[in-house]
């Protein structure tokens, strides 16, 4: 359901007395001369308050464009520190920021870009205990997180507080963008009532992501946020935009409000925030393995036994492109091909399966045990563990 009205939670009209300084008129002149924004729109932008959940791949372009556009108050929520692997796509940060809290480095960059706006930083994890309090001071919430528990938390907190949720998510070279939680429009749970069980869908850390993809998706989120603020155009409410960077194609699917939605439906059963880790099947700290109770061997033990000359067959269940980055001379059968290539393995020999961190190899071991293999274990911590404990010349990725 497209609408052309302004955001209900935000400044419906500009407050009297709010004006632009001479410097601001100059800075925003390319907005001001455009009738779709104009002085009225720019004053709305100046009074807008936007909370960005996550200052990573999506949060980077989002924060930059919202600050550049003159959004008067921007909140940044992230508990992480900048690391080297972030720099491939998180363009808010430079090499000298490695090791700094993301919110601190981001705020510095945004204040330099636009000193006239207010940047609030929250170096904390968004939780059921703090979400409603944090959301209270903002008109629009932008979800740029990377995990299912936080996505459901952001959704529910947005529906409960009545704030629109500008949603973007990415995987490899594919993105999904929409606006959830707009009064009358669908929410995330209308689309996906439940998260996938852990381990069934590969995470970005396993799947990788094309560096420019969050740039494109985060920029679309910024455009939607600005449109909601100025109340112009056709927002992505009730529309799921799918983007494929390899095919360079956008597709659009219809999203409907589910009358039976537990949070925004006609008879909501979920009226306060819950334990989202529990809901998403993550019990406590997310361990490297989701398949539990498979026999494991530590990298040190494996090294000792190989050095001693024990007959151990190493099975690498990663993808071929990962094998090219680094390997320990294992026999490569990607997890996805294991069921049809199982005949390549000799169940009478002792087998140690490994992947990057131990998650996929645990799945492989579980599968092979089901197929009758008995002398099989999973390398604890995967090739990363091998690099840490046995051979530091093996590069980590």
């Amino acid at each position: 359901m497209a609408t052309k009205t302004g955001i209900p939670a935000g400044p419906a009209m500009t407050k009297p007395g709010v004006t632009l300084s001479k410097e601001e008129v100059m800075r925003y002149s390319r907005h001001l001369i455009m009738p779709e924004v104009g002085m009225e729109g720019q004053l709305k932008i100046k009074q807008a308050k936007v909370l960005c959940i996550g200052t990573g791949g999506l949060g980077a372009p989002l924060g930059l464009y919202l600050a550049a556009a003159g959004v008067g108050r921007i909140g940044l929520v992230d508990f992480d520190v900048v690391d080297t692997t972030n720099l491939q796509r998180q363009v808010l940060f430079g090499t000298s920021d490695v090791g700094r809290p993301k919110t601190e480095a981001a705020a510095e960059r945004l204040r330099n870009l636009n000193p006239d706006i207010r940047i609030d930083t929250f170096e904390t994890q968004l939780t059921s205990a703090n979400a409603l309090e944090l959301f209270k001071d903002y008109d629009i919430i932008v979800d740029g997180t990377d995990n299912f528990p936080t996505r459901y938390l952001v959704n529910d907190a947005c529906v409960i507080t009545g704030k629109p949720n500008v949603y973007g998510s990415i995987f490899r070279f594919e993105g999904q963008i929409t606006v959830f939680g707009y009064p009358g429009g669908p929410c995330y749970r209308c689309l996906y009532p439940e998260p996938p069980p852990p381990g069934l869908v590969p995470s970005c850390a396993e799947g990788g992501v094309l560096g420019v993809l969050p740039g494109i998706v985060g920029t679309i989120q910024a455009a939607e946020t600005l449109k909601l603020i100025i109340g112009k155009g056709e927002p992505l409410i009730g529309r799921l935009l799918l983007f494929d960077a390899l095919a360079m194609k956008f597709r659009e699917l219809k999203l409907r409000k589910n009358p039976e939605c537990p949070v925004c439906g006609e008879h909501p059963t979920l009226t306060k925030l819950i334990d989202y880790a529990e809901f998403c099947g993550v019990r406590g700290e997310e361990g490297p393995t989701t398949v539990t109770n498979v026999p494991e061997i530590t990298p040190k033990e494996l090294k000792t036994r190989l050095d001693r000359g024990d007959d151990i067959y190493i099975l690498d269940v990663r993808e071929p492109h990962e094998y090219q980055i680094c390997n320990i001379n294992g026999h490569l059968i990607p997890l996805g091909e294991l069921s049809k290539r199982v005949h390549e393995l000799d169940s009478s020999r002792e087998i140690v399966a490994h992947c990057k961190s131990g998650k996929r190899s645990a799945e492989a071991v579980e599968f092979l045990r089901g197929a009758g293999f008995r002398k099989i274990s999973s390398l604890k911590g995967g090739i990363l563990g091998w690099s840490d404990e046995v051979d530091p010349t093996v590069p980590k990725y």
Partner: protein
Amino acid sequence: MAVKVIIPTPLRAYAGKQESVEVQAATVGEALAALTGKFAELKKHLYSDDGRLRSFVNVYVNDEDIRYLQKDQTAVREGDTISIVPSIAGGARD
């Protein structure tokens, strides 16, 4: 009826790395059965143990969600596109 099924990136590994697969079917249910017949690995990603479509996977015929049509029984016509759209969570850190 020949219909195209678009395979999302996270599931391509279980569908011979293909972006889309053409199958012969008269309903969405038949199309998905033909697909999982070709690629057995896909089955556990699309269906739960009790045989129902998983709740983090949505299926669309052209731009309509089959939950608001006739679900599995939704008829498909020559040239229709079926999209499998799973939830993805990626964004900030990893």
